[in-house]
Structure formats: structure tokens, C-alpha cells
């Protein structure tokens, strides 16, 4: 059952980084700059998650992800609900694939 060990190993190393902060975060008194830093992290993470990953939505057609992202951006600037933003990007990418 080699696969089972592989799955257990992957599960273990995936859980550790998620788990550690839940064990120690409340035992340490963090300075106030650290708390301000934690508030900024989500924006930095999301930026890094979006780009350049969005170019590989369809690995051979970077334009496809970009167009989906552009649609999402325009809808989000327009203050539409997050579900509509997602739907708009999905439909845009479907439509562009259908046309090309």
C-alpha cells in the first residue's frame, strides 16, 4: 500500500503549516506592528495568488485567464456581488473558448 503512505505523508506535511499557528499564536504577545503586518498579509497573498497564476488558467492560452480576470475586475469595480463577479468571469471564459 505504497499509495496509502504517500497520501498520509502528504496529509501530514499539509496539515503542519495550517496547524502550527493555532497552537502558538495566543501564547505570544505580539508587538502592535506585527498585528498591523498580519492585516496587510491577505492583500499581498492574494496579489501573489492571482498573478502570474491567472495566465495558466489555460496553459497554452494565457489570454484566456487574463480576459476572465479583466471581466472579474470590471464587475468588482462596479461593486457587484462576489457570486456575480465569479459568474461573469466563468461566462466570459466559456464564451471566449467557444468563439476561438
Amino acid at each position, binding site marked *: 500500500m*505504497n*499509495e*496509502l*503512505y*504517500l*497520501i*498520509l*505523508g*502528504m*496529509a501530514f506535511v*499539509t*496539515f*503542519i*503549516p*495550517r*496547524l502550527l*499557528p*493555532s*497552537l502558538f*499564536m*495566543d501564547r505570544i504577545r505580539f508587538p502592535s*506592528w506585527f*498585528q*498591523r*503586518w*498580519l*492585516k*496587510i*498579509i*491577505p*492583500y*499581498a*497573498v*492574494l*496579489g*501573489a*495568488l*492571482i*498573478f*502570474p*497564476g*491567472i495566465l495558466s*488558467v489555460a496553459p497554452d492560452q494565457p489570454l*484566456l485567464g487574463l480576459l*476572465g*480576470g479583466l*471581466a*472579474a475586475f470590471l464587475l*468588482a*469595480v462596479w461593486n457587484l*456581488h*462576489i457570486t456575480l*463577479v*465569479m*459568474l461573469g*468571469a*466563468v*461566462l466570459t*471564459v*466559456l464564451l471566449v473558448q467557444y468563439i476561438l
Partner: protein
Amino acid sequence: MIGSREKIFQGIKAGSPLALGYFPIAVAFGALAVQADLTWVEATLMSILVFAGASQFVGVSMLLAGAGMVQIIMATFFLNLRHLMMSMTLNHQFRSFSAREKIALSFGITDESFAVLALGGQGGDEHQALTPHYTAGLMITAYLGWVSGSAFGAIFAGVIPGEITTAMTAGLYALFIGLLVPPIKKSPVYLTAAGAGMLFNYLAGFFLESGWSIVLATLCASVLGLLILEGSE
């Protein structure tokens, strides 16, 4: 406990776009896992125990390419180091939760659940103070979408056309963009951090593997944001 039931329901509502977005991608994962000679039970078990899309795709692709167990597990570990930073941020927001709740909820941290939990309350129209019930409702909903999709894909490999999977992948990026836009419209510091995160990750991608480059880009971009914030006060 009507309050907590309502919170669970709100969490399920906030998690349902994630479940819908995860499903076809999990189907693609299940189909790929079967190609890599995993049984449908093993593919589903991996989703149940690992619950991390990127590392599961990388793991199965490496398996297809003939990589060894240690290599795959190490790649998974480095790919997921970014969850350490996400978990720090979220556990700071979870500080009123019990120790047991924090440990249990840590398992459900993914890029997407993090994005909704960390940003959902800020700038959006539905302000949500995080409670254990809300968080659990959101995570369990997303989890069920991921696990059921994996089983479906492994059993009925090739049912969902590639075009739909591609479009749904774009949908998950749209989730990130939709969560990011309202706060960065209001705050130049957040805008800088997000823009720098993109730029640094793009640059780091030339010489680092994706797991490391996201970690490095996040660190640099968030420190840059902090310096600007401290400098402006």
C-alpha cells in the same frame, strides 16, 4: 442556540461559491488521479485527508511523471508553506475561539477559504464578524464540494468537458479579484501590497518554484506595505 445555527447557515451561504467552484476542479483532479493509477477510493481519500488543490495536482502529476514518494511529499510541503502565513493571520482573527476550535478549523484553511474569511468582512457589503460556527459552515461546505467532486471525477473520469473546468478555474481567480478590489479601492497601502505581491511573485517565478515564490513574494510585499503604512503615520 438560534444565533449559532444562523451563523452556520451564513457560513454555508458564504462557502457555497467555493463548493461550486471547487467541484469541477476536483472532478479534474479525480480524473487525473485515476490516470496516475490511484483507485477512486485513494483519490477520494487524498481529498479527504489533504484538502489542498494545488498540492494534490502537483502530487498526482509527479506520480504520473514517475517521481518518488519522498520527492512528492517534500514538494507538497514547500508548496503549502504559504498556509503558515494564512493560518497566522486567521488564527489572529480566531483569538476568541477555544483551543479545540482553532485546531479543528486550521484544517480547513485553503487559499480560497482564507481569502473569503480574511477579506470577506472588510470592504464587502456583508460584514461578517468571524465566529466558530460561521467559519465551520463555510469550510465544511467548501470541503464537501472538493471531496464529492474528487470522488465523482475518479469514478466518472472525463464527464466534465475541459472547457468547463478551464472556465471554473478562472472563476476561482475571479473570487480572489472580487474580494481584493473593494479594499484596494479604499486603501493605497493594500493596493501597494497586492500590486507588489503580483510583481514580486512574477519576478521570483523565474528562479524559484511556485511554492517558494508565493511565500517570498508575500513576505516582501507585506513588509513593503507595512513600511509604507508606518512611514505615513
